[in-house]
């Protein structure tokens, strides 16, 4: 399989694209349900004021243009006039206000941003005013982040915390919901009333959108083998298999594999809570010294193409957040010193480390196994408890001091520190600190990109000093799809501007 080159030929209108997704989206409400599949489908249906381009930079989408006051406290957004929702109603400022209000209250990012917001109000039907309490540098990026999709105000009135049902899944995007057989498949259909922006070249989720495909069918395929087999036998045109499958798919001429922008940050999370074996910073340093990250990555990453040996919390594709600060700490490896440090921190050889992990994602279990092996080499015993994901979270939060290590991965393509799980893990492992809060405030107060970038470096450096997470690597994502799928060289989540060759 080869990477897509620019020789896709002229776009063809029509046809149905079948996409395999690992779970049912469960809800199409992107505020109530931050799941990946919901996002993947929701991005086809909904739009935000701003959207990120292929460099993860925010660009206007529903906003025609906007102004910022001198003191950087008042933003005035002018909405595009011709935009209609998929039920035919025009987009109004009231819809934007209602959607963003809900985001502030109910979405995790919104909640983090909210303290800085004074008000969001509608000027006239096509202007919205956002007043801040203090300047906030990433506010536009945050308005381009998941959760800020604009829904109709009338659909948001009186919603429970569980969000809205499929009857209210109406946005302004190029595709609308056609049918949904729960647990089986979901079909999107071209929204004929969609008015595209005129720009062509922003990439990512931004810019012009052309709906060439008549329909997009999302099939729920949980089983990895089924996923790969169906891909090879043409039962679906597009899937995102696990990294294990990468090499064999790459070798298969019937399938195209394609690396996607962004990725996952793979982390081991030590518990800071008193009572944990890693409450002592020396123990965390020791752990970092102990881990042979390249070896672990080799055993779990699947392919060199997919593994980025970096300790950064953001993807290298994410220009404004990718930082190499602390890279030297990331690369340290010294088991002997680790053993000594652990002993100093009160974790001598022979003690037992309690790892809680899940089998819901295969990688987690693998890391746990490799961790166990490395710990055993310096005489530390391990007790691994494997639960399903929901139970793991329950176990971690119910008894905050009852565990020592856990494993997770985070989306590394996000656009503001508020969205970076690696920086907001305080509730889980007790790693919040004044220093972190101060740095975050400093970032928010930045006035320009350089200033922001230097704060990101400090944040990254702090992470490696504090070791609130120990990053193993970044995994790149990839899509595998039928060679008939053309014009698909953008973000993995979206199929506008793509078409099926006849």
């Amino acid at each position, binding site marked *: 399989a080869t990477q897509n080159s620019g020789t896709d030929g002229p776009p063809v209108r029509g046809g149905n694209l079948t996409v395999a997704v690992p779970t049912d989206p469960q809800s199409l409400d992107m505020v*109530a349900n931050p799941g990946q599949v919901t996002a993947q489908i929701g991005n086809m249906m909904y739009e935000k004021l701003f959207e990120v381009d292929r460099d993860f930079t925010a660009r206007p989408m529903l906003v025609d243009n906007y102004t910022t006051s001198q003191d950087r406290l008042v933003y005035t957004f002018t909405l595009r006039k011709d935009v209609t929702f998929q039920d035919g109603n025009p987009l109004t400022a009231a819809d934007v206000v209602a959607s963003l209000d809900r985001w502030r209250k109910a979405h995790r990012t919104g909640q983090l941003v909210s303290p800085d917001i004074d008000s969001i109000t509608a000027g006239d039907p096509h202007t919205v005013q956002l007043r801040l309490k203090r300047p906030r540098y990433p506010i536009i990026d945050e308005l381009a982040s998941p959760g800020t999709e604009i829904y109709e105000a009338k659909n948001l009135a009186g919603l429970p915390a569980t969000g809205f049902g499929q009857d209210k899944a109406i946005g302004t995007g190029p595709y609308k919901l056609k049918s949904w057989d729960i647990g089986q498949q979901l079909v999107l259909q071209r929204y004929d009333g969609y008015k595209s922006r005129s720009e062509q070249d922003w990439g990512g989720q931004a810019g012009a959108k052309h709906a060439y495909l008549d329909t997009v069918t999302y099939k729920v395929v949980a089983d990895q083998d089924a996923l790969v087999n169906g891909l090879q036998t043409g039962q679906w045109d597009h899937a995102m298999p696990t990294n294990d499958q990468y090499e064999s798919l790459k070798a298969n001429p019937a399938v195209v594999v394609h690396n996607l922008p962004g990725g996952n940050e793979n982390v081991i999370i030590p518990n800071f809570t008193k009572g944990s074996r890693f409450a002592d910073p020396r123990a965390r340093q020791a752990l970092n010294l102990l881990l042979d990250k390249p070896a672990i990555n080799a055993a779990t990453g699947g392919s060199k193409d997919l593994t980025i040996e970096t300790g950064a919390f953001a993807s290298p594709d994410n220009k404004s957040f990718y930082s190499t600060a602390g890279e030297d700490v990331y690369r340290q490896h010294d088991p002997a010193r680790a053993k000594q440090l652990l002993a100093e921190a009160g974790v001598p050889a022979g003690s037992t480390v309690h790892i809680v992990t899940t089998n819901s994602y295969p990688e987690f279990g693998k890391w746990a196994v490799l961790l166990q092996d490395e710990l055993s080499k310096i005489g530390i015993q391990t007790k691994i408890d494997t639960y399903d994901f929901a139970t793991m979270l329950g176990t971690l939060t119910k008894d905050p001091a009852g565990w020592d290590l856990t494993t997770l991965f985070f989306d590394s393509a996000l656009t503001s520190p508020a969205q970076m799980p690696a920086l907001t893990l305080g509730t889980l492992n007790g790693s919040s600190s004044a220093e972190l809060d101060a740095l975050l405030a400093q970032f928010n107060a930045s006035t320009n990109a350089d200033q922001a970038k230097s704060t990101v470096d400090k944040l990254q450096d702090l992470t490696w000093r504090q070791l609130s997470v120990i990053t193993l690597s970044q995994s790149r994502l990839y899509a595998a799809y039928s060679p008939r799928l053309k014009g698909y060289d953008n973000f993995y989540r979206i199929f506008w501007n793509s078409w099926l060759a006849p």
Partner: protein
Amino acid sequence: MTRLLLRRLRDLLVILVVVGTMMFFVIRLIPGDPALAILGPTARPADVAALRSAMGLDGSLWEQYLSWAGHVLHGDFGSSITYHQPVLGVVLEHIPPTLTLAVLSSVISFLLSVAVTSWYAVSPRNPLARALDRLSALGMAIPDFWISLVLVLVFSVTLRWLPSSGYHSLFTDPVQALPALVLPLVVLVIGQTALFVLTLRESMLGELPLAYLRTARAKGLSESRVMLRHVLPNALMPLITQLGSNFAMLVGGIVIIESIFVIPGLGHLLMGAVSTRDFPLIQGVTLFVALLFVLVNLLVDLSYAVIDPKVRVS
């Protein structure tokens, strides 16, 4: 017969109540919180609590139970937490695939096992019959997920004869449905047939020394007729028991087959519901599985009464 039916209907209600209640409390023993599962590791406790209450999960277990039971009595199984839809609808949507697989595979296995065993009984010296009989022992030994992987690799991925997965309704779309059903059915049939052959052979062997066969032979009946009309029917009871139990197992448990072949059935739904802690949905599915189970066993018991007049079901 009517008395039997009435009594079994009463049992059915009792079982449903017991299972419903047991299930309600058992699944709540499972740690993990649906709200937390949705909101993820970085959620604030306050939000989790808010979501919990929106899902109707606050209040004591007893209050929850009573309210759930009260609604169920009025035919309202509640609303799925994850799908935001009435549980009843979600469950009904997932029943046909599972039932299609379970019924078809049970029927096919039953017929196959009866055919193989009787053939072997009638002509024990026929090499093919003997080979089939022996093969059944091997059939029992094959892990179903293993053979699924292999069959898909051979017949779908390599030979491209059959789709590797998928499900279409047999009634609305038979042309697409049949090829997709072949592989999962084969997998289910292999294991079940093997088990059935073993059960049936055993019970037929038990009948062979009985004196009534002598009478049948004295009538000048052919050996095949003796086997098919006398031994077989009298030996069927253990097989039918086995069939009933297996059917029950299938309905609640073909998770693996359903997931490998991407069949949107009850087992799959149940697994998903458990992993997201969608309590109303779990309860709904469980009640339906229990209902199906009881109905199947009612049939089994009725067939006892038909097959063995001495066993007056009580």
